[in-house]
């Protein structure tokens, strides 16, 4: 059975990889703009362009790296930078949990190890928005396009500071949010609960950015707090049926879903 399952994925490998690379393009463009400004922060922290490149290549996290760089400026203790990174990136832990539920039975541990490397808001978003089990090769294609943009953009920002005209930076930087919208709006259209939840998230997030006390927290911390509270609230009030829609479509994309006893 393991053979069989792997075979199905390999059949889709080339196409999924190409689709991933294509969908990685807008992400890469957005990454270039955002990582460029991250590079400026890295320079302020005293990092060389190569160190900034390395940090972005290995960490793949906007808020997490930014928080890390500001900690480096302060010459903080190693434990502190570990904690700061943990808090700023905690949402990836939740995303990784969510992804674990969409692995096809019998997927090799190597796929798990590689797919985990670049779980970011955007790459998670496009992977999870596809129906059925996650296809590792789709993720690899997207990472191959987007990750170099992130690393080179950071190095470029460290070297070149303010070369890009402000107008372009401004326009590029909404690419990321456009992608978020493309992930959350279609399910909101299909499901009134998701639609209401998205609206509530906008309001709550706006409120939290203005409220005294909450607004003093970092953006990353606010995101974690709101995610846990709102997603838990939605899960309590509107639990999903045992076999949600995305699982049903798994049958279509990976013909025949056998029992899930994959961990032998």
């Amino acid at each position, binding site marked *: 059975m393991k053979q069989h399952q792997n075979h199905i994925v390999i059949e889709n490998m080339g196409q999924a990889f190409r689709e991933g690379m294509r*969908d990685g393009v*807008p992400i890469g*463009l957005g990454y270039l703009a955002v990582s460029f400004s991250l590079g400026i922060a890295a320079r302020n922290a*005293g*990092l060389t362009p190569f*160190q900034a490149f390395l*940090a972005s290549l*290995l*960490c793949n996290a906007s808020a997490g790296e930014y928080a890390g760089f500001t900690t480096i400026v302060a010459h903080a203790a*190693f434990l502190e*930078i570990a904690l700061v*990174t*943990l808090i700023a*990136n905690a*949402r*990836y*832990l*939740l*995303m990784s949990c*969510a*992804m*674990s539920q969409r*692995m096809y039975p019998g997927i090799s*541990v190597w796929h798990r190890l590689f797919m*985990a*490397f670049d*779980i970011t*808001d955007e790459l998670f978003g496009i992977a999870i928005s596809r129906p059925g089990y996650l296809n590792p090769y789709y993720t690899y294609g997207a990472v191959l396009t987007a990750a170099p943009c992130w690393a080179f953009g950071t190095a470029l920002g460290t070297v070149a500071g303010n070369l890009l005209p402000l*107008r372009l930076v*401004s326009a590029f930087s*909404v*690419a*990321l*949010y*456009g*992608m978020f*919208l*493309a*992930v*959350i*709006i*279609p399910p*909101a259209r299909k499901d009134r609960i*998701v639609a209401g*939840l*998205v609206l509530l*998230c*906008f309001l709550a*997030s*706006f409120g939290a950015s203005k409220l005294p006390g909450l607004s003093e927290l970092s953006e990353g911390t606010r*995101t974690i707090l*709101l995610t846990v509270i709102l*997603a*838990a609230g939605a*899960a309590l009030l*509107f639990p999903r049926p*045992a076999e*949600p829609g995305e699982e049903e479509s798994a049958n279509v994309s990976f013909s025949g879903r056998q029992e899930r006893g*994959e*961990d032998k």
Partner: protein
Amino acid sequence: MPVNYIYILIMAGVSYAIRVLPLTLIRREIKNKFIRSFLYYVPYVTLAVMTFPAILNATQSPISGLLALAVGILAAWLGADLFKVAVLCCAVVFLSEFFVL
């Protein structure tokens, strides 16, 4: 400074651990209805929370950010794919800041 490399390695190690542990350790289907539902809602909540109001501060003028949000929602609602929505949002910001604001 060599100490920077230690900082970077710690950042990288923590970032990877957070991402890899759930994905490698959770091998079973989670049966608990609450946890399942929670994980189902997490991506939408996180992305929604990070989109607004951050999109207003990403651009030079909050108005162009708001326009991009409106156009992005509309385009995604009408079925535009990821790439189209992203490019449309960029174009809206560029044009609105170029001509109007």
